[in-house]
């Protein structure tokens, strides 16, 4: 989803944080589908990705909670288990790569939170009128011993960012529940049931848009609302904005610059009604 990447790039440029693309990377690979097939292959590909930046002394920033979890888990697992590290390095030797130690891996949401004061000073457009349902998702928080970021049962960091932008963040019943995306692989109906529960709770709380910090959750909310409506006869049509898209709007970027028309549910009309973007 290039629009998510584009918004992040714009936001971090404004915050004077230098980002470069991590070239030659493979899939992280994802922490749900790939280790289910072969845990060792998962650790090996993850370690290969970490090894790409180790010598450059860069940190890895990812917009995806799944990538962050995988890379943090690989760091953790190999750091705790020298025998596993040796096995993985023996695998990597076949392509002339080696992982020595730890690479700092961070979620872009964490980086934003750590720079919240600078961010506040750059806001040019209040997002007043947006009633946001924050969906933290699973891998942004858990397993908390390894992710080591927000409280997995009472998270606040994303809410604080949303409020700093002038928007409201509303509480709703199934706030911490999974979006259901991984179940699309096993049982689509159950995946829709989980999403239906979340959307119903959000609606009852009186929200007008949803914010996510994971592209997988984004796909689930933005593209599967239609499937939920079909199954349940509902009329959910909540625009979904990835966190950096929301921030970019507050930093003065418009829907065109952000490519918001490429979303499944277009946020333009709502943003115009709230005077967050102009009516042109």
């Amino acid at each position, binding site marked *: 989803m*290039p*629009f998510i990447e584009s918004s992040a790039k714009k936001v971090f440029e404004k915050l004077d944080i230098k980002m470069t693309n991590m070239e030659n990377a493979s899939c992280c690979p994802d922490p749900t589908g790939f280790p289910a*097939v072969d*845990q060792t292959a998962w650790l090996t*590909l993850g370690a290969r990705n970490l090894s790409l930046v180790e010598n450059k002394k860069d940190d890895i920033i990812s917009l995806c909670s799944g990538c962050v979890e995988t890379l943090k888990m690989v760091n953790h697992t190999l750091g705790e288990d020298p025998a596993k590290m040796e096995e993985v390095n023996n695998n990597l030797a076949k392509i002339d790569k080696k992982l020595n130690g730890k690479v700092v891996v961070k979620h872009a949401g964490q980086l934003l939170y750590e720079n919240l004061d600078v961010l506040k000073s750059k806001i040019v457009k209040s997002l007043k009128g947006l009633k946001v349902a924050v969906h933290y998702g699973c891998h942004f928080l*858990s397993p908390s011993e390894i992710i080591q970021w927000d409280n997995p049962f009472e998270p606040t960091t994303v809410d604080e960012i949303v409020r700093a932008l002038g928007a409201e963040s509303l509480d709703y019943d199934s706030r911490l529940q999974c979006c259901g995306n991984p179940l699309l692989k096993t049982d689509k109906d159950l995946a829709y049931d989980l999403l239906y529960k979340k959307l119903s709770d959000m609606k009852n709380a009186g929200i007008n848009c949803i914010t996510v910090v994971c592209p997988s959750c984004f796909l689930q909310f933005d593209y599967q609302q239609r499937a939920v409506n079909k199954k349940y006869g509902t009329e959910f049509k909540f625009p979904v904005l990835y966190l950096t898209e929301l921030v970019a709007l507050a930093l003065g970027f418009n829907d065109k610059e952000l490519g918001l028309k490429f979303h499944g549910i277009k946020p333009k009309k709502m943003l115009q009604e709230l005077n967050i973007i102009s009516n042109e």
Partner: protein
Amino acid sequence: MTLTIDYDFRKQIRSYNASLDYCFQCSTCTGICPVAQLTNGDFNPRKLIEASLLGLKDMLIEEPKVWYCLTCQKCVELCPQKVELTEIFDVIKNYCVKEGKIPEAFNSQAISVLETGVALPFSDPIMKRRRQLGLEDYKTVDPKEIKTLLKSIGFDKLLRFDTPTTDKKEGGK
């Protein structure tokens, strides 16, 4: 149904993840599990751990229940005994795969990573949209390198190439 106890299977799970032994069957995992709630307990993480402790290999591998785990990690967060349920379920899934029982969506995603290095390849429309949004072209991994690496550890032998691999799971825009 006859239940066969396979001690070796239990031993192997423990050798991958020793936390299995700590479970005292309190059912906190099932209580917090969103899929257990949705399926009225048909998916039951406590029972899967119990079956692992008892070495009921056939039951775990013949029935596809373990694949219903979302990996949301809520059970791992709350487990008073710090049992790493999602990792233990991965070990069980890895056994299913070795026995040729890999669900199609998992198989097709794994094939995509094997062949291209990524689960969702950078297709022409995606590259075009990147340019529209002012993003520079991006160089992903040389697929040959990933193929060499994964083949060297026998990953390709785990997958089924006889089934269609049209995975249109989410229509990634």
